């Protein structure tokens, strides 16, 4: 399951999507909106995507992950639009026969998502400042 959504992410749905009789380990990663980054306070984040390409790149990274680990089930959802502190921005669930594979595959998936999927966040500060995040590659 690969989705972009403007609705809150339901972690239970991600877990249900990867349920598998031959999976002995299920890893769920939730990326959530953090209030403090060092001394900087965030009020909210706004996410936008190049949507068709983002879905294609998420499909590509799923394929890469499945080539490296014996994945039974994989589900990825990224939220777009305005998110408040504590909201879930991204959810990834992966099931594998053994837990070590599931942990590794899930870490790979979120790292790769942050590298190749065309999604951007704008950081909104309490004083009204707003800054698009374009980290140096």
């Amino acid at each position, binding site marked *: 399951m690969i989705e972009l959504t403007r609705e809150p992410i339901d972690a239970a749905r991600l877990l249900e999507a990867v349920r598998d009789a031959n999976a002995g380990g299920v890893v769920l990663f939730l990326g959530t909106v953090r209030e403090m980054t060092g001394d900087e306070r965030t009020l909210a984040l706004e996410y936008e995507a190049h949507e068709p390409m*983002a879905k294609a790149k998420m499909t590509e990274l799923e394929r890469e992950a499945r080539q490296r680990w014996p994945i039974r089930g994989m589900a990825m959802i990224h939220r777009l639009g305005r998110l408040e502190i504590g909201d879930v921005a*991204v959810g990834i669930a992966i099931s594998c026969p053994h837990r070590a594979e599931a942990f590794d595959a899930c870490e790979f998936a*979120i790292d790769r*998502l942050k590298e190749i*999927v065309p*999604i951007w966040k*704008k950081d909104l500060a309490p004083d009204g400042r707003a800054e698009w995040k*374009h980290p140096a590659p």
Partner: protein
Amino acid sequence: MKVTATIRILLFARFRETAGRDMLELPHEATTADVLRRLRTEFPALTNLVDASRLARGDDFLQADEAIRPGDELALIPPVSGG
């Protein structure tokens, strides 16, 4: 009547906000490097960001020296920050 060949560039995030629109129409350029050079002049305040960005066609990132066809629709992809 002479029709000038053009290409379209989809804009996102800081580029979209700086331009005040989500698409640019530019004269056709031969390669990705030429398009990026042109985009540096379109975004004089964001040349560092242009240099850190990639171009995509459809769902694929383009290499530095790929040929651009008249009428192509490209996307200017600045460094991503999902997650």
